[in-house]
């Protein structure tokens, strides 16, 4: 019993950090019978001090570091960080590199959304959704592996360009993968989204109104599910997004179901975008001229033949001008990610600030669960696609 007086009728319930809903955080719920009076998320279980460590690593070494917190969504955060570094240095990636970055970002968005969908499935007790989503996620991971060489931590974007060009036959393989995914989405609809159990557990649960979404500063699909058509890719386009034709998926209901369906809609939009990218990819170099000419002559043939960049030594000791500051915003899979960098003229960032979408969405835990049932907590938690390492950094 909480509180001192005997008149208190609420009970404090601790959920986690070891719980079925994929861990990393504790939810402190104050319950009155079965109704949640107040729910306080206890975050910080995965606080690994990324921002502080970034000050001890060079600009290039920081790329793998910022990929660790949002592990399911590395490409978008990598892109955001690299854009900030490029602004510090005054470098611009060539057009083909921009398109390749967008390609990987969209592939990552698909498999990150499928990851969220699978975790949501397991929170609702639907093992089928978990198995299907994680199985289909592997398709995109495999394609990304062919492009970058890594399963999920790509470190693909480097200041001034990307590491590798498209491998031969990539477009045809990708078309097969996209067709498979398109064929699968109606199956998900049949077995999971329009399943009466799923609908009963998600529809009308955790409703976030448009006004509250704006007031609380929510980002990403959670915001768009409440009817706000805000997307950084549209509001402040970057990389190849200005030239792509896509829609900002929104829904007006604002409940858990809407949040999930917005993600499914975004998977469809990403599939469309990947098709456009592969059809209209411009030719040209994949590394900015300023760095490409520093590749040692004996490696230039290798780079030309294989399309794999041999890092010029300058990348290991990038020194932006003293006092330079840069901010970049990207639309990561879970929402808007902001990177802020300050340079003191040395090879390491003076300060790296990383505002991740999960950090901005954590406020929803206490807002949406007020007055809901204890059984609704997983349904709401899963629909937020909250990734604790990303929020704690």
């Amino acid at each position, binding site marked *: 019993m909480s509180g001192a007086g005997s008149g208190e009728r609420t009970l404090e319930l601790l959920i986690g*950090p*070891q*719980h*079925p809903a*994929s*861990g*990393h955080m504790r939810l402190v719920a104050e319950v009155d019978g079965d109704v949640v009076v107040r729910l306080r998320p206890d975050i*910080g*279980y*995965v*606080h*690994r*001090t990324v921002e*502080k*460590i970034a000050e*001890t690593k060079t600009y290039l070494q920081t790329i*793998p*570091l910022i990929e*660790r*917190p949002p*592990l*399911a969504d590395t490409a978008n955060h990598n892109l955001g960080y690299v854009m900030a570094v490029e602004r510090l240095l005054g470098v611009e990636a060539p057009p083909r590199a921009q398109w390749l970055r967008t390609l990987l970002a969209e592939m990552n968005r698909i498999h990150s959304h499928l*990851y969220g969908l*699978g*975790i949501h499935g397991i929170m609702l007790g639907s093992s089928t959704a*978990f*198995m299907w989503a*994680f*199985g289909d*996620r*592997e398709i995109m*991971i495999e394609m990304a592996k062919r492009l970058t060489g890594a*399963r*999920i*931590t790509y470190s693909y974007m480097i200041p001034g360009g990307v590491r590798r060009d498209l491998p031969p036959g990539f477009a045809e393989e990708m078309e097969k993968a996209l067709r498979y995914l398109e064929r699968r989405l109606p199956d998900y609809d049949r077995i999971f989204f329009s399943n009466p159990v799923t609908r009963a557990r998600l529809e009308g649960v955790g409703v976030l109104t448009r006004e509250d979404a704006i007031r609380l500063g929510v980002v990403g699909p959670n915001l768009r599910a409440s009817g706000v058509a805000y997307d950084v890719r549209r509001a402040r386009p970057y990389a190849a997004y200005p030239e792509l034709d896509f829609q900002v998926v929104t829904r007006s209901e604002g409940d858990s179901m809407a949040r999930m369906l917005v993600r499914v809609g975004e998977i469809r939009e990403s599939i469309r975008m990947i098709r456009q990218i592969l059809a209209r990819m411009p030719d040209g170099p994949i590394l900015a001229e300023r760095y490409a000419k520093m590749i040692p002559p004996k490696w230039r043939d290798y780079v030309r033949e294989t399309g794999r960049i041999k890092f010029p030594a300058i990348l290991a000791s990038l020194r932006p001008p003293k006092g330079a500051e840069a901010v970049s915003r990207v639309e990561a899979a879970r929402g808007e990610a902001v990177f802020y960098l300050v340079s003191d003229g040395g090879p390491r960032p003076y300060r790296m600030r990383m505002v991740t979408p999960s950090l901005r969405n954590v406020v929803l835990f206490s807002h949406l669960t007020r007055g809901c049932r204890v059984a609704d907590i997983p349904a709401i938690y899963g629909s937020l696609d909250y990734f604790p*390492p990303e929020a704690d950094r």
Partner: protein
Amino acid sequence: MVCGLSGTVLVGNLERSARRAARWLVERTPVRGIRDWGIKFSLWPVHFTTACCGAEFAAASAPRFDAERFGFLPFVGPRQCNLMLIEGTLTRKMAEAAVWVYEQMPEPKFVMSMGACAIDGGIFWNSYNIVRPKDILPVEVFVPGCPPRPEAVARSIIMLQKRIERGESVGLRV
């Protein structure tokens, strides 16, 4: 403690002697082989996600890699689990929870640590908020990688099974 049993008199701690006798019996060849074989194929990791390697751990349990074919089934309650997988970095706040969860698990219990961070800090080696799992838990198998590929997780499960079979990992805190 002295017990009288129809004429015979047993002297000593009966409870402890019984336990020792049972242990002696179980440690003999036929029973022990069956026991280890049984443990080998029922390694149930507790669903305790400490950091980002959990994404690859989930992929290892998903259809493409399917760790369940080794009898490896992630489960919710620590009371029903005998394997703990430290999935990546262990922060100070999480280390406390890790020890609690480990203590709740029944014996025999095993600890595997996944990822470079769980070996010696990995990319976060100079962070002020991390703990090396080997300092607080008896880790049996280390899985290198950042994050380790799901194949590496599968291989580490087989390694642990072999260790159990050979009697190198008993999973008991004697």
